Each structure stands twice: as structure tokens, then as C-alpha cells.
């Protein structure tokens, strides 16, 4: 696939640029969905309902931020949902021998980091294509969960462990949404305000160029795999705490929803392009669509049609538009 980047002879004004940007388009879509939803169902504009709706996307979005950086750098990690399963299984096994909440959190995060490190080593250390490696580790990680649990489930998490997925910080503001916002800010700073963030873009745009500019491409990618693993560990803690049990099929299929979220957020799957605000809005769009249709009694699988169509449409429509204009 060849992508040609045209260099314009006149730069657009910053205002025009931000108005025409992907993020503002997506923001309009989000507002539109919000308004349509509030007309469609009387139950939509209710603080508690809206708060509940955020659980649809907070855990996925936490991973999506790290995944966005990874995809911008030109790699992908399809094993994230399997890492959730493995981390959750490890936590569940620890509960059976009486480990307390702080220990569980440590275990969840460590398993995430470890899985991320394995992915990172296979991709950057051995130079293998990330899409295949992570399809492999996806089977491997979830497979280990299946070996440990089979058709059983781990239960009996300590009561204070429930806070991560079920606790509220203030009124309707859940712990998860606060964590989501915090992580979004951290990743926005990492990507948009640090040298490391510039290195991520450079790596994704032109690996050879980045290498010749003194960027340690391998290390950048390895760190991104670590971060993605770590965020999967965080998501595993939240999800396990929210569900209160662990089955090996936990978070099944999330990897594709997370990639959808990232791509919907304007991150180019070919690398080098994308922003954290875009992913934040995409998370809200997916959450609102799921929640709004849910209130209208539309079954979950129909929502997936909408999400799938959205994924293709948001990329296809601008291209169709420019094709139509040039003809």
C-alpha cells in the first residue's frame, strides 16, 4: 500500500485547521448522537443512567490510549483482551490463597507488564511482525487462562477490591471515569508534549528516518508494548472488580472493539497519525451509541452493526468526498 502525502503550498490558518480536523468532525457526531438519544428516550438525560453508560467504554478506552500510541508507532497489539483474561485469572488464583487487595493490584499490573514485555521482545527483539505475534500470544495468554480455569470460575474477591469497578468518588462520578480521565490526560501529555511522543510519531511515519535521527526505534516500541500490557492490567483490575468473578472468556473480543475505538478516533492504522483527544471522543461516541440504542431496546449485536458501519464510513466518506471533488 503506498500513501502519498501532498505538501500544500499554503498552510491553512490554525482556526480553519482545527475546525476541519478529524476531532471536531467526530465531536459533532458525538453531539448529534447525544441530542438524538435525548429525543429518542426520556430515560437518557438522567445523571445515574449516564454514569452507568460510562462503564461501557472506560475499561476499553484505558487500553485504547496505549493502543493508540502503539498503532501510531506502526505496530498493533491484538493480545490485549487475552492479557486481561490472564491477569484476571492470576488475581483470581491469588484470591484463593488469601492475597489481599493491594497484592491483587500488584499481581494484575505485573502480569500485564510481563505479557507486554513478551510481546515487545518478540516484536522488537526478534523483529517479527506484531500482528502475527500478538495473534499468537492472544491464543497463548487466553489459552493459559483456559488451562487454569477450564469451565470453572474464580470468585470470592475481598469486599474492598470491589471499589475499583463499582466505587464512586463523588455522587455519580465513578472511580473508573476518574481513572479514565486521568489516564487520558497522562497519555495526551506523553504523546503531545514530550520527546517520547515525537519519537512515537517519527517511528510511525518513517522508521528508517527515525533511526537515522538517533531515535532508538526498538526501545520506543518496546516501551509502548509495555504500556499497552500495563493498561491491560489496569483494565483487568477494573473489570474483575466490577464483575466480581473471573472466567477464561472474560473480555472476549475486546481487542477488536479497542482497535475500532482507536481507528474511529482518527488514528491511522498505517501509523504516524492520530491524537489522544480523538480517541477520547471516539470512546464517548461508542459509549453513547451503545447506551442510546440499549435504552431503545436495540440488542447489542445490532449496535455492533452500527459500530462496524461507523468504522468503515468514517474512513470511506472523507475519501469518497475528496474523490467526488477532484472529478
Amino acid at each position, binding site marked *: 500500500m503506498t500513501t502519498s502525502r501532498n505538501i500544500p503550498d499554503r498552510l491553512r490558518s490554525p482556526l480553519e485547521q482545527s475546525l476541519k480536523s478529524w476531532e471536531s468532525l467526530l465531536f459533532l457526531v458525538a453531539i448529534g448522537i447525544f441530542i438524538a438519544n435525548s429525543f429518542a428516550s426520556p430515560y437518557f438525560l438522567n445523571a445515574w443512567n449516564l454514569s452507568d453508560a460510562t462503564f461501557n467504554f472506560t475499561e476499553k478506552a484505558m487500553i485504547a490510549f496505549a493502543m493508540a500510541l502503539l498503532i501510531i508507532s506502526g505496530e498493533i497489539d491484538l493480545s490485549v483482551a487475552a492479557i486481561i483474561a490472564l491477569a484476571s485469572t492470576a488475581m483470581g488464583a491469588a484470591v484463593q490463597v488469601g492475597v489481599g487487595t493491594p497484592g491483587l493490584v500488584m499481581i494484575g499490573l505485573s502480569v500485564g507488564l510481563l505479557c507486554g514485555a513478551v510481546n515487545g521482545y518478540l516484536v522488537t527483539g526478534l523483529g517479527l511482525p506484531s500482528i502475527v505475534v500478538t495473534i499468537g500470544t492472544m491464543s497463548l495468554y487466553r489459552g493459559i487462562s483456559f488451562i487454569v480455569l477450564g469451565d470453572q470460575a474464580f470468585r470470592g474477591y475481598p469486599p474492598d477490591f470491589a471499589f475499583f469497578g463499582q466505587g464512586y468518588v463523588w455522587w455519580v462520578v465513578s472511580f473508573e471515569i476518574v481513572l479514565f480521565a486521568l489516564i487520558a490526560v497522562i497519555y495526551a501529555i506523553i504523546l503531545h508534549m514530550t520527546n517520547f511522543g515525537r519519537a512515537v510519531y517519527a517511528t510511525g511515519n518513517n522508521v528508517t528516518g527515525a533511526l537515522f535521527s538517533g531515535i532508538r526505534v526498538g526501545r520506543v516500541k518496546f516501551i509502548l508494548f509495555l504500556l499497552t500490557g500495563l493498561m491491560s492490567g489496569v483494565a483487568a483490575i477494573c473489570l474483575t472488580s466490577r464483575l466480581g468473578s473471573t472466567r477464561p472468556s472474560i473480555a472476549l473480543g475486546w481487542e477488536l472493539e479497542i482497535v475500532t475505538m482507536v481507528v474511529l478516533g482518527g488514528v491511522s492504522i498505517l501509523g504516524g497519525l492520530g491524537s489522544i483527544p480523538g480517541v477520547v471522543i471516539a470512546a464517548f461516541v461508542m459509549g453513547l451509541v451503545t447506551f442510546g440504542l440499549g435504552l431503545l431496546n436495540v440488542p447489542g449485536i*445490532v449496535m455492533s*452493526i452500527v459500530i462496524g458501519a461507523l468504522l468503515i464510513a468514517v474512513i*470511506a466518506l472523507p475519501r469518497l468526498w475528496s474523490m467526488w471533488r477532484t472529478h
Partner: protein
Amino acid sequence: MKRISASRELLLLIAIALLLALIASRFPAFVTPANLAAVFNDTSPLILLAIGQMIVILTKCIDLSVAANLALTGMVVSLINIAAPGLPMVVIVAIAIGFGILLGMINGILVWKLAIPPIVVTLGTMTIFRGVIFLLTEGKWVNSHEMSDAFKAVPRTEIFGLPVLSWIAISAVILFWIVLTRTTLGRSFYAAGGNPNAATYAGINVGRTQFWAFTISGALAGLTGYLWVSRFAVAYVDVAGGFELTVVAACVIGGVSIMGGIGTVLGALLGALFLGIIANALPVVNISPFWQMAISGGAIIIAVVLNAQANRSPGRIILKRAEHAT
């Protein structure tokens, strides 16, 4: 080049032989011809899909919608069978292939005309196809008693001692081996994926080649859709859920390079058989079937590592030689 790819398939063949020998050492009944034929039959759907997927991957694309295509086409032919039980099976099979082609062409058009990355396109169509099944049926199952006897009989009908399902897989292997090695289209798949720029200069329309790859993958997925629902005599939304990754795994184990341009029908066949043998052997050797996922995951990683070592880019070596020469 040819020698390397031949040795890779030989390596896999040896691995399969060792695997069979290992199983046979404790459970000789597993390697009887009758049981091996049953294993082959059981693996046939995976073989069919792996061939289609391999062709798509050859052109530097990926088709994640194959399992959803299979499920949707299977449901469509089941519903047609309920509506018109008298319809001859030849027509049903033709509809299955035709409908699969249609779904494959949707992927192909989006990749070709709009240049949307294939992984995004097929991720989207995967969820859409599954969703459409739900819209068609409102989540209801089509059960065995609703399907006509002829509908269910086709894949199990035996010809020369082998079920039709196996024969279809064998014919597909032969057909696509000929297509890939003896036709212009087949060579253009390799060219389009091996070096898209060079292919364009050689007069090959890369986009259109990718379109045909998706069409073939769709046709095979559609055909497999009918065979799948008629064999298991049930159709529902989640038929073959997650199977797309098993199919990709079969290709990777079979030595197909995800970067495009490298892979053979024989490789895809052997990769599928490797996974099929493991799946069928686990219950026999008394290992919980829950081990299957981790084993195939490990197999994928080992296969990728081995393939990468075999493919250490030959371009660089030539450059070094040229350097020394000057």
C-alpha cells in the same frame, strides 16, 4: 527462493509426522487410515478457509471477515432451505458460493476503490455480517429438524469411501494450486504482495488483484458456510465465532508471510492439518481440550520465529555482495 520455501513445507511435514508418531506411540488407533481420514474431514472447513486467507495474505491484505461470512452465508442458505425445501442442492451450493462472492466483493471494492486498509475494512464487515444474521433471524436458531434431509446429506455423502466434504477440500487444494502456479492471476497475487511498486510497473493492477483475492476468499467462505451448517445441522449468529484467527493461524504455521508475497497452497494445507491434528488428538491422548488454545498460540509463535529466520531478507545479502564487488 524455491528451495527455501520447499524446505519450509518439508519442515512442517516433518513436524506433523513427528506429532503423529508421538501420538501413535501411545494411541496407535489414532493413526489408522480410517481415523486419519476422519481427522482430514474434520479439518476440511479450515483447509478451505485457509486457502482463501492465504491468497488474501499473499497480496499484503488480511481478511478477518471469513468466519462472519461463513456464518451469514450458512444462515442465508438455511433460511432458503426452509422457505423452499425442494430446491436442488446444486442450486443451494451455487447460492452459497455466489453469496460468499458478493460479501467478498464488498471487502474487495472497499480495499480497491477506496484504499481503506484491509484490516479496518474486514474488522468492520466482520461485525456487520454477524449483525445482519441477527437482523435476519432475531437471534433464533435454525435447527436440524427445520433443514431438509437432502440439505444435511450433502457433506456426508460418501464417494469412494470419503465424504463429499473431504473431496471438496481436496479439489480446492488442487484447483488453487493450479491457479496460483499456472495462471497469470495466480502469479499476479505473488507479484502484488511481493513488491507492489514493481508489480504496478509490470502492468499489474495491484488494487484489482487484491479485489480478486477477497472475492476468492469470499467464495470459499460462502461454500464453507453451507458445508458447516449442513454438517453440524444448526445455524445461529455465533457459528464459527473467532474462527477467523484460527484460519490466520493455519496460514502463519503454514509458512505464509504476513508481509505478503510468500506462501503456497501446500503450506496452507499443512498448517491447517497441523492445527486439525492437535484439535482431534487432545481428547484422544487425554489432555483437556482447554489446552488447545494455548498450544495453537505457542505453535503460531514458534512458526513465526522459524519463518522469520528463513526469510532474512535476501535483498540485503545481494547489496552486501555488490558492495564487496566494487
